[in-house]
């Protein structure tokens, strides 16, 4: 059981990072970047390419993350900004970000070939025993990095003026820009952040998956589901959503059968969405508001 939870957390941390990438871009621009998974792939491919060129693995990993961030910014400038400038409420971004996803994926396949290639390993695969369970150092690192990044994001969002400006843009972009927040810069930063989160997820999962131009599909969808579980009110919700998704997958794998990891998490997600259509974290708010209304009625009458 402990093994299920820990392995689930390790893979879920990856989903959560990608999910947070989705969430950060969505939070500021109200756009779901369908190329988010491809940003992860860019991170993996660039890191692998740099490493193959003979560079230090640390440098390769840093280069991969930076490339993913840059690809995020390019996505925004090419596919999102022009569309939003036309109509902030249309869904045209769905087509254009999907177009970017197609381009990134196939350009990668053209440059590096459609098959899997090696990925630099930063850590050896030794196992660490935690109680009755065993995790690799890589998996522990993944969990640690994911938690640290989620926490750092929340700190920036809540404790810095910059983060608060981001919240203002998320809540009401027109008002925020009237108050002097540069919404354009905010959006660029958000997409860079979305790319960096995906890139980090990429270099963390790379040693297991190797580098492959089609990685974006798998992890893109998992990250998207993580976003749905967590809801879009707070980007950090997507991290929790990813962890839940990871644990569900591992649980299905060990308790039902390997195939079940395909469908079991979705069944749970459906149940969650039917009960709490705005993500698992909406339930608290709803209970509070119900209780609040009841109480206010009582006071007003008495």
């Amino acid at each position, binding site marked *: 059981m402990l093994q299920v939870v820990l392995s689930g957390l390790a893979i879920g941390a990856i989903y959560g990072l990608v999910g947070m990438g989705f969430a950060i871009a969505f939070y500021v621009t109200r756009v*779901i970047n*369908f190329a988010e998974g491809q940003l992860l792939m860019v991170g993996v491919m660039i890191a692998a390419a740099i490493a193959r060129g003979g560079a230090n693995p640390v440098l390769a990993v840093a280069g991969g993350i930076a490339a993913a961030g840059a690809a995020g910014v390019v996505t925004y400038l*090419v*596919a999102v900004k*022009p*569309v939003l400038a*036309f*109509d902030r409420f*249309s*869904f*045209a971004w*769905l*087509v*254009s970000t*999907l*177009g*970017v*996803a*197609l*381009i990134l*994926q*196939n*350009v990668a*396949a*053209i440059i590096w070939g*459609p098959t899997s290639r090696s990925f630099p390993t930063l850590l050896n695969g030794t196992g660490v025993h935690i109680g009755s369970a065993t995790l690799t150092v890589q998996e522990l690192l993944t969990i640690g990095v994911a938690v640290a990044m989620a926490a750092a994001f929340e700190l920036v969002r809540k404790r810095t003026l910059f983060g608060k400006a981001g919240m203002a843009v998320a809540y009401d972009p027109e008002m925020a820009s009237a108050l002097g927040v540069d919404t354009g810069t905010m959006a660029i930063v958000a997409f860079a952040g979305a790319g960096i989160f995906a890139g980090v997820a990429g270099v963390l999962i790379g040693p297991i998956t190797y580098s492959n131009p089609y990685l974006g599909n798998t992890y893109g*969808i998992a990250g998207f*589901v993580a976003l*749905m579980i967590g809801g*879009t009110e707070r980007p950090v919700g997507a991290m929790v959503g990813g962890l839940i998704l990871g644990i569900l997958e591992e649980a299905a794998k060990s308790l039902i059968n390997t*195939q079940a990891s*395909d*469908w079991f998490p*979705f*069944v749970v*997600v*459906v149940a969650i*969405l*039917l009960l709490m*259509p*705005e993500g698992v974290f909406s339930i608290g708010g709803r209970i509070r508001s119900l209780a*609040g*209304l*009841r*109480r*206010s*009625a009582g*006071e*007003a*009458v008495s």
Partner: protein
Amino acid sequence: MRADVLSALRTGEAGAAGRRWALRWREPALVAALGVYLWFTYYVAHGTLYLQGLVLVAAVFAILAVSLDLVAGMAGLYSLGHAGLFALGAYGTTILYNDHHWNLFALLPASMVGVGLVGLVLGSLSLRVSGLYFAITTFIFTLVVTVLASDLKITGGYGGLIGPVFPGFPAGLHWLGQSLIWCGMLALLVAILISLGLRRSPLYPVLLAIRDAERFAAAAGARTALLKIGLFGVSAAMAGAAGWVFTFQGFISPGQFDWTVSVNILVMVILGGLNTTIGPVLGAAFVSMFPAQVNMNPFWQEVLFGGLFVGVIIVYPGGFVGLLENAGRWLVRSRSPAAPPAAAPSSPAGEPAPVRVAALESAALEGAERTRPPAVTPARSAAAGPPAVECRGVVFAYTRGVPVVNGVDLVVRKGSIHGLIGPNGSGKTTLVDLIAGRLKPLAGTIAVDGRQLERGGPPARARNGFMRTFQAPVLVRELSVGENVGVGLYSRVPRITPRAPVWPVLPGARRDGRRIREQANDALRLVGAERWRSSRIANVPHGIQQLTQLAAACVAGPSTVILDEPLAGLSPTEVEHVAEILGELKGTGMSVILIEHQPRFVFALCDEVTVLDAGEVVATGPAAEVRANARVREVYLGQ
């Protein structure tokens, strides 16, 4: 009255003058388009197998795109569940045919009904939240369907199933060629006609109102949630039919229905042009044929494909149809530089036309007599009349401990104008929202025409002859002034919803459509905004939007109307004019609740006035008495 109707007809004719050219050519153009469509089908039905396969798949996706456009374009519901619904239709047909030997042609209605029902359930579960969460819930639905299709034994797992063979034409019809092509193309034709029918029906403005101005639609009597679910059900049934057609192309497997297909269908709709009927068909043809038609390195082909997505959407967010419209406009402009403006004024500009309340009333009642007994009983002595609206001890709070409306008693006499005044934040609009059913009181009762209605929503109010306007105009920006007013007649058109999908072919549709236009014109003439009738709301000044709201509230001949600051943003002459209109309305026996800030206007016009302050009634009674009240002078008039 005869003369009034005749003159209404005449102005209708004059207004159509600008569109007469289009009208004369519409029917021949439709016949020609149909001919080309059938010729194309005939041509493909005799073509190579390769071409047939290509066109059949394109037709199936065009059906899906048209069905998605119904919900995405008209109601703003971006469903990502259409691949799942499509899969249910395809797998249902195949399994019931292969394993249970159902009749192939009975399976078409069966799959439409079955998938339509699934759509209704999915819609009612996921439409409790709108926008993105609707997309997400339907997306998950598709994931579940494909995962189940991959893992279940009955669906053949990843390998899929072999589909049934479509029977050929009987001997006498062999000259038509391949029967399956006709089947697919005719199914697409029916889908296009349903979509066009809905767009031409009077339900269309109501659906757009639900999409863009839900409060307005609800206030006009539309049960918005039910309509959305119903529309999604229709869309799902069409997706089920697409699945039925798709089974005949050979074999089906989970990969053909996965979530990328859902996204692709939405891409087809947006790329072709959202809410245009023909755009989704073009988008479907492009997206499904492009990969097969362009011979190049598959990776470069995909890159080009993606580049086209980005390019088209960035340059023309309206998609192919937006692009064509632009090209058409450019052609027209270069051909005839002095083309008349589309929105030509229909009556001479200047003074508003003489007010014809009688025509409005009788026309509205004529339309209404089937749905409700005439409830308007003119009451001349306002103060003594029975109550039109009666609130007793109404309490409401948005957040706990801060009552916004606190134990308000309000009685509005039938056939009177009742002013509701008070400083900003005194709870006027909240009280009006409570009376109009948008909010539910925490305590107290609200009776309209003697009926307890505090638990019913706005649609129930509208059906009981109770209409309202909003402080900031809530209208459909892309529709004309006249079409917006027509939304107000929603509860007066008999069986509007079931008739809508087949509207153009129904007997009486033309008559009803004309009656709606006439009544909307009468109402616009009543408020003096007639010459704006064919201008889009997005292009008219604020004052005209206010008058449009007023006309939409009055068009159905309600017994009570609530006007929430109808004078805000009006010019002094317009204010005088609205005052005149309100007098006229009162003369017809209508009760009016008026929220207003301009004391001069309120006390001159209202029979009775209620003053609110901090959610409580300060004074209520005949206007003169209230005006003399010391406390009112203090809190409101600042004297």
